[in-house]
């Protein structure tokens, strides 16, 4: 199901449109682009330059700033909480990736020939993704609640002891990670359903005639042919998890003893920039985050050659 047209066609389209009325056409084109360009200039490109500058300055609490060279970067690198937040964030992206296999399995189950209710299932799985993350965090905090939460109640039936899931430093990251997976599975499900639809039915039928079982078909057809989609989803997943903030912000109260074990890089950025009045260091931190995202994305693109099949 290729939604996007081939680039060859687009080039042709561009050429024909352009051969006409060149000077006037050019001006019109700029007019069409101007509003967006202006918005980008004001709200993206200029701020990007400014943040870069800020990362070398120190802010006065009530305005004004002084240039301090690379001190902010040194502070970021030397700060243990940064490394801890970095570790947590990488951990979240690993946990976040487990949503992919879950989504792939569900997508291939939904791909079963003649299965009824596909649309209903898809709709239900997608609901957590549409829901306000703050609301999701509150609901799960309530489920996880150590004193009155439903989770402890259900587990106690199996003899598991009462536990404070989100405020015990040893379980809090997993508790948050679970919610991340829960709320993003539906998103990847839809991506994979679209991907699987693009695999010709004939392949499955041929395999079936050859006597391949469902499991074998999954591993020899679905997975390899889906690998470009899986790759793309894993890149998106990683970029999103590296910037995670909302859920942790709502789920972790200030005095939560697990706060150091769960704080994400963006969470730390928010604290520095808007609570502790360390905007310069926060800017440096944000740049390091961008470098990290770029590096990991690059790494993924390098590694894809080993496992992604482009048909």
């Amino acid at each position, binding site marked *: 199901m290729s939604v996007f047209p081939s680039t060859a066609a687009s080039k042709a389209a561009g050429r024909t449109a352009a051969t006409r009325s060149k000077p006037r056409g050019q001006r019109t084109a700029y007019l069409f682009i101007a509003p967006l360009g202006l918005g980008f200039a004001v709200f993206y490109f200029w701020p990007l330059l400014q943040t870069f500058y800020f990362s070398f300055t120190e802010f006065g609490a*009530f305005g004004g700033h002084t240039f301090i060279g690379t001190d902010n970067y040194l502070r970021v690198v030397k700060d243990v*909480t940064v490394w801890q937040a970095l570790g947590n964030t990488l951990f979240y992206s690993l946990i976040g990736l487990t949503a992919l296999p879950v989504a792939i399995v569900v997508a291939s189950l939904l791909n079963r020939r003649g299965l009824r209710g596909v649309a209903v299932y898809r709709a239900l799985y997608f609901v957590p993704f549409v829901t306000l993350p703050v609301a999701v965090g509150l609901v799960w905090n309530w489920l996880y609640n150590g004193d009155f939460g439903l989770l402890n109640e259900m587990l106690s039936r199996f003899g598991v002891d009462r536990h*404070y899931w989100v405020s*015990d*430093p040893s379980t809090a990251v997993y508790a948050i990670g679970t919610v991340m997976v829960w709320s993003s599975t539906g998103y990847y499900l839809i991506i994979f359903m679209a991907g699987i639809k693009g695999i010709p039915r004939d392949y499955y039928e041929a395999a079936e005639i050859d006597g391949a079982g469902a499991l074998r078909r999954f591993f020899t057809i679905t997975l390899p042919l889906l690998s470009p989609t899986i790759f793309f989803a894993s890149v998106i997943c990683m970029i999103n998890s590296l910037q995670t903030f909302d859920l942790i912000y709502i789920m972790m109260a200030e*005095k939560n003893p697990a*706060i*150091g074990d769960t704080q994400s890089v963006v969470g730390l950025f928010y*604290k520095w920039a808007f609570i502790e009045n360390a905007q310069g260091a926060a800017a440096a931190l944000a740049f390091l985050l961008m470098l990290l995202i770029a590096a990991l994305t690059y790494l993924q693109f390098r590694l894809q050659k080993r496992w992604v099949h482009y048909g």
Partner: protein
Amino acid sequence: MRRRTLLGGALAAPLLAACSGGGGGADGGGGTTLSYGMWDPAQAPGMEKIIAAFEERHPRISVRIELTPWASYWTTLKTSMRGGTAPDVFWMNAVNFQLYAAGGVLEPLSGHIEADATPVDHHPDSLVRLYAYRGTQYGIPKDFDTVGLWYNKALFDKAGIKYPDASWTWDDLRDAAAELTDPRRRVHGFAAEMDRQMKIYPAVCGAGGFILEDGRSGFGDERSIEGLRFLTDMIDRGWSPPQSAMVESVGRVRYWSEKVAMNYDLSAMAGQMYAVPALKDHGGIAVLPKGRRRATIIHGLANVISAKSRKKAAAWKFVHFMAGREAAEIQAKAGATISSYAGTQDAWLKSMPEFDLKHFIEMQKYAVPYPSSENTAVWENLQYPLLGAAFSGKGGIESAARTLGEQMDRALEEERAS
């Protein structure tokens, strides 16, 4: 952007000043309206009464309360300072005071105090000093808060233990906590919560340690660690719920619901405690038990004037009025807080006859002022993440405290460097 802000400010200032009738003497003309920034809605009725009394004295000045919720009070204030729209007079606390004073956005009051003989000496000295920066007074206390021992008489009776009194030491507290803990009913003797003002600072000071002295952190100090261990030990022994449990229902709520027999809590909570029928009936108050020495933490809010205010003369009249006896008495009667003006607390004491509120005032004698520096928030924010594990029964309070001490020292160093 910055340039535009600057320009905008420069253009707007003379314009606005012209409108209000010229410079600081705005109140000389046809009436001035002051804005008064505060965050606690529970205190608004009392403040309205004080304002009414003030307006009666100064018919040309009126005061309008700007109530900003606590959660956004400081961010809002900071940006309104930058934008020049901050309230003329506003509430200040110890955590933020030095930052604002050093930033030059508070009006120095020493000259005014001297000229008008403002009765600052009637307010607790430790509090007055909290609001002086480099020898200049910038704020005048309006109220104060000490931490006391709240206990549940019914639970004490059930366990057959004598109520706490001024003779109690930490050992007595520990013994009682052990006795009062009843795992079957899920009742704990004490709430050794990870909270700086109510638990950590009083315990550290009670053990003879300190939080901040001469620009140095006290968390690595042996005595300070002893104080912290006093708290974490009760968690380890099961006499207090672990911090992980107190995130989900805080110590105060556990005390309200009679699941905790003893709790350190603020005098400012008296009104809320009084509203809980069970506690009004059998809630008790005592001074904090003695560790190596007697200590509690005292903190109070102050009224300050914005250096960017264009109505400073009127603003001073208001702050001067609030520093006096009349305003203090009105505030005390309103009951929400203890007024800091000596001898005006009777009304507050009488407002809740079932509670022995006088202990909160007694403790003033040996109370340690809330520790602060220029960038208090920075080193305070180090505390909970580092101490969390030790407060949830995972042990390691000593190394956690030392790490905290080192990091806090580093933060203080950075503060001095900037």
